């Protein structure tokens, strides 16, 4: 086959794939822009006749998605910052110090990567009840930090091990503390790794559904995934509203992804090529 033909064929196939990947999103967007009447028009239309933002307005205000958005934001941002800090501290200890039980904890963290989170759902639910963490955003935050701890620690440990040690030693010789080294040297030098870890943690928290639906009963404490699922179960026919709410939830993810793409690729491949 001639190279030109081959290249053309490649593009045809790739565009076919793009249609399969993107059409559901286009359909979702167009449904959300239709008024309530048209959502199951047949034959389906990908471009709405009279586009309107009324679904978005109703979802945000009347249906309280503004509040759920705020809850999600609080949980995801707090959990991400806390997770980055705690995993970085733990990773630094694993990379630089020898201490009792180091090997043991390391293997426990490894095993934690392999055990599905849902195995812990019931005991975590009972624990949250005992500790008064049900119906509290802190209950979500602490669990999300824990869930991301092992993976983040592994990724950061790998990065810290590559940092030059002589710089840190010179601080110690000057009588500085390890805290100084960590906060003033190690963390600033690790911005790319911290960014990668933070992005994945943020997305995890933003999209997490199972724990949130178990831990939260109170309507005012719902996060976006729980709110969307609940709304969908209760109002199966109001597709325009459901998708407006879904797009409200999806927009921050999309923006993060497009703005920080290079960190995504780095994070994904860091696990694969160690």
């Amino acid at each position, binding site marked *: 086959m001639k190279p030109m033909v081959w290249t053309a064929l490649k593009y045809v196939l790739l565009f076919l794939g793009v249609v399969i990947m993107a059409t559901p999103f286009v*359909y979702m967007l167009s449904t959300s822009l239709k008024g309530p009447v048209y959502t199951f028009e047949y034959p389906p239309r990908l471009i709405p006749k009279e586009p309107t933002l009324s679904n978005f307005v109703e979802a945000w205000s009347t249906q309280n998605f503004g509040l759920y958005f705020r809850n999600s934001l609080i949980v995801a941002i707090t959990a991400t910052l806390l997770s980055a800090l705690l995993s970085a501290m733990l990773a630094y200890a694993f990379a630089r110090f020898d201490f009792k039980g180091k090997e043991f904890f390391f293997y426990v963290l490894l095993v934690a990567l*392999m055990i599905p989170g849902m195995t812990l759902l019931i005991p975590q639910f009972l624990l949250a009840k005992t500790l008064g963490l049900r119906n509290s955003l802190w209950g979500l935050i602490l669990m999300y930090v824990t869930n991301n701890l092992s993976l983040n620690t592994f990724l950061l440990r790998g990065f810290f091990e590559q940092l030059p040690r002589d*710089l840190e030693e010179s601080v*110690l010789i000057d009588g500085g503390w390890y805290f100084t080294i960590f906060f003033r040297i190690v963390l600033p030098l690790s911005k790319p790794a911290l960014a990668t870890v933070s992005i994945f943690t943020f997305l995890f928290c933003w999209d997490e559904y*199972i724990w949130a639906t178990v831990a939260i009963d109170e309507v005012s404490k719902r996060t976006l995934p729980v709110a969307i699922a609940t709304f969908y179960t209760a109002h199966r026919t109001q597709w325009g509203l459901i998708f407006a709410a879904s797009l409200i939830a999806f927009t921050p993810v999309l923006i993060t992804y497009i703005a920080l793409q290079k960190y995504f690729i780095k994070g994904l491949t860091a696990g694969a090529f160690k």
Partner: protein
Amino acid sequence: MKRGWKVAARGLSSPFVFKFISPSAKKKWAVFFFVFPGIALFLLFWVYPIVKGFQISFYKWSINPNLPSIFIGLANYQRALRDPVFWLALRNTVLYMAITVPGQIICALIVAVLLDRIKLGRVFFRTVYYLPVITSWVIVSVLFRYLFAEKGLINYLLTDLLHLMPPIPWFTKPGTALTVIMLLGIWKGIGWSMVIFLAALQTIPNELYEAARIDGANAWHEFWRITLPLLRPTMVFVLVMLVIGGFNVFISVQLITGGGPLNQTEVILSYMYKNAFSFLDFGYAASLSYLLATLIFVITLLQLKFLRKPTEMYY
């Protein structure tokens, strides 16, 4: 550059008194400071629950604090082995895994190979193929329910546009409902494997392909003799991760069929969830989740043992 840092680091020395604390004491405090918060959280919210859950699975667990839970030994596990819905759920879970894992790998490999050596529009394609990966399971599950609705886009395509078949009521029969769930699993996962394959393909030196071409190899040979063997470690990594993910299928089933009609599309985790939070049978639900965790753990270890060469992979 390095010199600059050193000079900067000089300014960071601590107050005078700290200089009298011995280096080894310093180190001890530092270890405590760095390790404690993370490990404490991990012990409380991960290690304790995993032990507690194991204990619960041996009890007829009472959710009423005034009634005692009764130790019943292995009865919950024995009950699972006799429970036809458990076997149905296990069959569906294995089927889901057996179809979506190869489905994702093959599609992702094709896309990655197509994308590997094109120049124009690479980032665009990669972005679009990756979109479903970053979208939450809740949103895509609801979306697929809508796409495959009686008067949805897919039936319109099949019936009115392509004239292939009459509209299918996808969610009334278990077979077609599971098909939708699996199609969703493949569609959502392609981008993830594709990005990893693509990164691996770029590490293959071009000279290998050039040498092969001089020897008269065509694209087909190149793929089977060069690309695929060199992708092997990456392939193992992707396989292991996807198998774990496949066994964990839950949200799509929960939101698309809820396990119905009549438990026919139940998977292990949806059945576990139903037992725990609809029937409040925590003991039985815990035993189901431990059976699944054990299965995943054993399969993962077996895959690592038989597929990976040492030093090839990190975890």
